[in-house]
């Protein structure tokens, strides 16, 4: 739910990175954090397990400057990807203005992608959101690994809405900002319409 504060001329929006375990959601945020001017971002908070897996969420506030006299701020969140943490995923989705679904391109992770995508749909529905309407961008991550699924197949399996989609190698930053820019656009145009 966007927060528009007329007294301070600020707009805050929430973006949630969703996807199966180990698909690269946290890596996306870490790359954005490492490449953003410190003046434009706040602290990155990661609530992780002892083995650095996301336990609750990663969080990073990002200021994108001014648009029509309003300061534009985005709060980026990731959800824990492991199946076990579904209750946490549900909580973090609440109030999302847009979702980035990060798919793992490896052949043996296709089932996990599909399960996670179905889980996204269900969890959105629980909050009264509709996956057919909410601003959504797809990212096909790990394109540098061997034994990956062709993009055409990923598109067929996940992109029924024909939303913007990007190939990525998040660990090297490839496609990370393209994805972010696209979801920001989707959210702003949703606010506009």
């Amino acid at each position, binding site marked *: *739910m*966007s*927060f*528009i*504060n*007329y*007294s*301070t001329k600020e*707009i*805050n929006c*929430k973006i949630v990175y969703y996807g199966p375990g180990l698909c690269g959601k946290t890596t996306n945020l870490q790359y954005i954090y490492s*490449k*953003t*001017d410190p003046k434009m971002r*706040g*602290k990155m*908070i990661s*609530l992780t397990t002892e083995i650095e897996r996301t336990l*609750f*969420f990663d*969080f990073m*506030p990002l200021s*994108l*400057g001014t*648009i*029509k006299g*309003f300061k*534009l701020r985005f*709060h980026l969140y990731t959800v824990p990807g492991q199946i076990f943490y579904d*209750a*946490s995923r*549900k*909580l*973090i989705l*609440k*109030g999302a*203005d847009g979702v980035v679904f990060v798919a793992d391109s490896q052949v043996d992770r296709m089932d996990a992608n599909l399960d996670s995508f179905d889980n996204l749909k269900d969890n959105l529905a629980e909050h*009264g*959101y*509709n996956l057919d*309407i*909410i601003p959504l961008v797809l990212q096909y991550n790990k394109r540098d690994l061997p034994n990956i699924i062709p993009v055409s197949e990923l598109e067929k399996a996940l992109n029924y809405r024909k939303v913007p989609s990007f190939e990525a190698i998040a660990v090297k930053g490839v496609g990370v*900002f393209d994805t972010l*820019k696209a979801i*920001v*656009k989707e959210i*702003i145009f949703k*606010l*506009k319409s």
Partner: protein
Amino acid sequence: MDEFYFLMDEEIASKIEAELNRLKDESNSKAVFLLDKNGQTISCSKDTEGYDKTSLGALIAGNVAATGGLAKLLGEKEFSILFHEGENEHIHINLINQKFILVVIFDESTSLGLVRLRVKKAINNLIPLFKTINNKKKSNESKPIFEDITEEDIERLFQGE
């Protein structure tokens, strides 16, 4: 999904801020914040410059959300009050109307009892003010901000990424 808050004018914002300052003074606490349930800071008392409000907001909202999940598991509607006791500093968190979160940070110079008492009074004063923060479907009032935004405007936001 399409709901918005509008702090319509400076007058309401300053009334809320005055109430938070009163709570801070009367409870002898260190800082008072008002957040929405997503963790966005709506207002805060004076002397909060030293706090990372954005991080505090996100973590407290996560805390409230997780506790809300626990409440549901136990068949409770919600746990409206959370209290975290530290060695030197403590946090009192109050969920108001299932929409807003009132946060009081205090230390040994006051007591939990006094904080609770003053928080109750502050909530009674804040609730009428919340009615003036519209939480409604996107209205025409938002359109002047967005209606003429172009792709170029958005591209410009990412220059120098």
